[in-house]
């Protein structure tokens, strides 16, 4: 639907900043989206993966003879073959963690339940699964390693023998002087243990791929839903001996990722090997149980021996803690995630002394990967737990202690103890907005009135930062040899032969509305309606522009993606103006672009439609003004102004923008059962300049919904033998429409001084609901047993136990008076 605008309308408004209908919606509501499993190729064959029933076992023998003889079977692939055909995937960790060998199928040993052991390729998906039932694998079960803490014990199993221990990576982060802070403090609050549980965002579309090998050019075409394809290429290429430019990744519509689809390259590699082996297009469909068993989990993290020096007035001076991060059986995107928490070291707070002794370990569980709020939410959750516990132990108000310790708006831009720069924001104001949304005063009053009646009301706050646009240079903090620095995105904006403006970007949107917001930006610069701007869908490195970091992750599109689009559109605008100026004999700055035409300002008759300009350059090119060199095909690479961090001090700016998310909630707890009901939920966000407020609000809703689920219902659990006991939606209780309340939102706009358009990356939400709900539960516990909410997952049973914890039990918290 194209619309002609009057001059007045154009001059008084910009498309950016308006919630126009999304361009994506037309096809998606009609079921015309094209998702990875919708791709069909002539003569395709189907893969089924036989997966390990054990958490940890040696593979003594694999017999595929019966499977290969089964009807319709084309080929099988075993770990023994993979051992010859594949080099281990690159490891991000330095040695000895870097000795870990990760293959696309288990070689010799299985290290998590659900690890693929044998791939069967057959004419139909059913035949492949039928034949997989005939594969015989002789396993020798081994003791399983389930917790991060156990992984560090000397007497337990070692998962990857060559490493010599279960440690992937260890780093001491030490900024300011925590020892001096402890000396200066009036009190030290000690918390024995906090545990951040394992969960995942479970995008409703599971992983899927169709891989076709064309021997003529030795090229692999990969239709898939990987959300960071060049990262996948970087892992797959060297491992499979394929030049990365022979891997043609194509993504179109993607049914959610939340980071989870970044590591599906392991499965794509299986398809690539089979495609070459069989000469057939290979189609792989992952089902939910496969996805929960072997897709990608969020990091589980345990914080031990936390010490918080505080002043009597509630001023927090610093934090000292040990952290053990459990990345599952193979560190696939890890330990890169291990440094990402250091983007938000002090959270929203002013304290400047931080020491975190950080260790990442492997266990017999599914490998982790990026998951909405990746690695920052664990750390931010720990900080928010600390704030509430300190407030309660010192008998201070949970709101007041936050406002007192928050970084104040006049301190922006603010350099954190580790050299990150918070660009802008007003945390106290966001908190006030969030409290207004939940009718804070009313509920505090109600809480007092209900005291002693058996009704339990809790009020909680979660303050988080959504750090966006990541400096990959921080990878060097883990591994000095990693040649990463900075970040970027590229876009091409061209005027096509028929006068259509066409935009390509390297990103892999999964609902964030890139087509719409890119069109808004281009429409504003080129004097068009967004409907007149065509934005090509998805990543296609065989046809479109891309960078090494192209993709959709780490809350960056509004900055990197739109920064690239803006740069390319400005270049095209300049070319159009030059061309029109040449045609009309006017100065370039006398040209204006209105409604698909270029014209001389104030001279309505001196106008040429875009199709006319395109015609001059692409068809009628003898008429081009002399000496003019224009292509109408403009590419721009946006680079944020990052520097390489100081790897020894672990110091430097790791992120470009910091959106704020302050959430607040009111809960009611059923004392008899421990069931939690959310009565009010409010989220105040500051994402800088808003390009499309409705999309931003939608991201806030979504992050809140997932966080509420994680806080109360969703946990990936393993038993002591390494059996996953929540491998499907029966046991992994993804939140439904009746679990999530009507989330209220408010927004302020503190433009980022560092991004081209004042926007900030957002969308991850920093796990704010986990913080807010735990905070509210803590508020409840302090009315009863003073039990500490020490776990991020609080289903009814755990709340029930906390409500019944003996008041004389060790609460795991001690307040030490500092006599020094």
């Amino acid at each position, binding site marked *: 639907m194209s619309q002609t605008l009057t001059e007045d309308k154009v001059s008084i408004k910009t498309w950016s900043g308006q919630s126009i209908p999304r361009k994506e919606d037309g096809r998606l509501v009609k079921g015309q989206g094209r998702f990875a499993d919708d791709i069909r190729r002539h003569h395709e064959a189907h893969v089924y993966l036989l997966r390990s029933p054990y958490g940890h076992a040696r593979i003594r023998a694999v017999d595929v003879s019966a499977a290969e003889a089964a009807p319709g079977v084309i080929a099988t692939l075993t770990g023994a073959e993979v051992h010859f055909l594949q080099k281990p995937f690159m490891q991000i960790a330095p040695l000895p963690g870097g000795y870990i060998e990760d293959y696309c199928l288990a070689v010799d040993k299985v290290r998590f339940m659900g690890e693929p052991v044998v791939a069967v390729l057959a004419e139909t*998906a059913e035949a492949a699964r039928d034949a997989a039932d005939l594969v015989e694998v002789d396993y020798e079960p081994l003791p399983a390693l389930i917790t991060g803490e156990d992984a560090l014990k000397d007497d337990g199993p070692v998962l990857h023998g060559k490493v010599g221990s279960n440690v992937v990576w260890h780093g001491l982060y030490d900024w300011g002087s925590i020892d001096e802070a402890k000396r200066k403090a009036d009190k030290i609050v000690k918390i024995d243990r906090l545990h951040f549980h394992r969960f995942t965002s479970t995008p409703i579309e599971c992983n899927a791929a169709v891989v076709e090998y064309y021997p003529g050019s030795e090229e692999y075409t990969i239709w898939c839903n990987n959300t960071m394809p060049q990262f996948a290429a970087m892992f797959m290429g060297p491992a499979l001996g394929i030049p990365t430019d022979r891997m043609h990744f194509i993504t179109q519509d993607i049914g959610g990722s939340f980071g989870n689809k970044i590591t599906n390259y392991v499965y794509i590699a299986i398809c690539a090997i089979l495609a070459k082996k069989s000469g057939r297009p290979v189609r792989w469909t992952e089902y*939910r149980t496969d996805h929960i068993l072997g897709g990608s989990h969020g990091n589980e993290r345990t914080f031990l021996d936390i010490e918080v020096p505080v002043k009597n007035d509630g001023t927090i001076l610093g934090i000292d803690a040990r952290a053990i991060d459990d990345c599952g059986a193979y560190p696939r995107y890890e330990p890169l995630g291990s440094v990402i928490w250091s983007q938000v070291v002090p959270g929203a707070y002013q304290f400047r002394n931080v020491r975190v002794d950080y260790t990442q370990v492997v266990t017999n569980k599914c490998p982790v990967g990026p998951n909405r709020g990746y690695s920052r939410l664990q750390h931010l959750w720990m900080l928010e737990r600390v704030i509430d516990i300190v407030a309660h132990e010192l008998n201070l108000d949970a709101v007041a202690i936050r406002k007192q310790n928050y970084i104040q708006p006049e301190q922006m831009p603010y350099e954190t103890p580790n050299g990150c720069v918070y660009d802008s924001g007003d945390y106290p104001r966001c908190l006030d907005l969030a409290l207004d949304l939940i009718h804070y005063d009313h509920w505090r009053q109600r809480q007092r009135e209900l005291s002693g009646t058996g009704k339990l009301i809790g009020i909680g706050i979660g303050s988080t930062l959504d750090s966006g646009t990541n400096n990959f240079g921080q990878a060097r903090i883990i591994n000095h040899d990693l040649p990463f620095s900075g970040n970027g995105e590229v876009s091409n904006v061209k005027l096509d032969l028929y006068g259509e403006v066409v935009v390509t970007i390297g990103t892999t949107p999964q609902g964030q509305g890139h087509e719409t917001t890119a069109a808004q930006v281009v429409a504003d610069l080129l004097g068009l309606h967004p409907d007149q701007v065509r934005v090509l869908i998805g990543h296609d490195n065989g046809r479109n522009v891309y960078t090494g970091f192209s993709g959709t992750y780490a809350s960056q599109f509004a900055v990197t993606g739109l920064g690239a689009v803006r740069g390319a559109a400005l270049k095209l605008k300049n070319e159009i103006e030059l061309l029109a100026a040449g045609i009309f004999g006017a100065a370039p700055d006398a040209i204006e672009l209105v409604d698909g035409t270029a014209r001389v300002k104030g001279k309505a008759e001196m106008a040429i439609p875009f199709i006319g300009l395109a015609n001059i350059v692409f068809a009628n090119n003898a008429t081009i003004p002399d000496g003019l060199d224009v292509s109408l095909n403009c590419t721009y690479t946006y680079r944020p102004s990052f520097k390489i961090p100081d790897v020894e001090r672990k110091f430097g700016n790791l992120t470009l923008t910091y959106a704020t998310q302050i959430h607040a909630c009111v809960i009611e707890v059923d004392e008899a059962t421990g069931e939690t009901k959310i009565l009010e939920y409010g989220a105040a966000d500051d994402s800088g300049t808003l390009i499309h407020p409705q999309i931003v609000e939608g991201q806030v809703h979504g992050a809140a919904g997932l966080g509420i689920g994680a806080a109360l219902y969703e946990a990936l659990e393993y038993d002591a033998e390494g059996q996953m006991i929540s491998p499907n939606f029966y046991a992994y209780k993804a939140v439904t429409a009746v679990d999530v309340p009507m989330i209220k939102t408010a927004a302020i706009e503190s433009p980022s001084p560092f991004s081209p358009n004042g926007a900030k990356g957002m969308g991850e939400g920093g796990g704010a609901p986990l913080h807010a709900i735990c905070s509210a539960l803590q508020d409840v516990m302090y009315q009863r047993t003073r039990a500490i909410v020490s776990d991020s997952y609080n289903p009814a049973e755990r709340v029930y136990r906390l409500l019944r914890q003996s008041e004389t039990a060790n609460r795991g918290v001690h307040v030490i008076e500092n006599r020094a």
Partner: protein
Amino acid sequence: MALLLRELEYVRPDSLEDAVRLLSELPDAGLLAGGQSLINVLKMRIGGYSTLIDISRLRELKAIEVGEKSLRVGAGVTYDELMHSMEVSLHRPTLVDVVGRIADPQVRNRGTLGGNCCYNDPTCHLPPILTAIGTVFEARGSHGTRMIPASEFFVSYYQTSLGPGEMLVALHVPKLKSRSGDGFVPLSVGGTDVLNIIAGAATVTLAEEGGIEEVVIVVTGASERPIRLESVEEGLKGTAGQPDDADRAFSLLDLALLDPPDDVHASAEYRRDMVPVFTRRALEQAMKNARRGIHD
């Protein structure tokens, strides 16, 4: 698990008689009604049958008839059909409420009463309430029809007393007597009625002066089958059913009766603790409903 089932045979008989005959003649045959549990078992390839006998369209299994003392509800009636049955809402309204809570509209549009009972998963809604209200199950096999009281029908996890070749054809649900009321309160995962950790069900009949004349209290999820809390029932009989009475009666709860499972959703200990909570809530609901009858 995947959406890929093992090869199987399918037959859709035209009559109940044929269905019963096929069930006894075919080796390893199973009945497919709504399929809302069975199809998941087939997807997991952890069993199932080599032949499915589709009974979902048999008219004989769809009827709801009103008798003198009870309703005869066909085993093939779907939750959705039951929810919209005037007969059931008039004579045993609690069933309309209970099935209206099961899972979601999609499941209610296909899932059947018979399927729910024959699957007899302890997380199901119907076994406890049907036990509490004294439902009798009508089974048909090659040797004819037999009537099985609920207390004997539900045997253990996933097991009923139906014999080989026997099929559930109808449920005989007693009509609600005057001064009576039912209650059903589950503790479900996330509070959303998809999967019940435990469920309490109760039915009470009050004497004219308002005291408890008859009471049945049932719980599922506390052991391998729906069980009655007989000691509590005894303690309640003849009382006014006031909170003090309930306190006294529940103090008689025989914990030895309980042998709850321990799984990802809840520990055995928590389930045990929740038994008095949810059965009592069910009792209170039943009392409220019974008293409403009196005041009306």
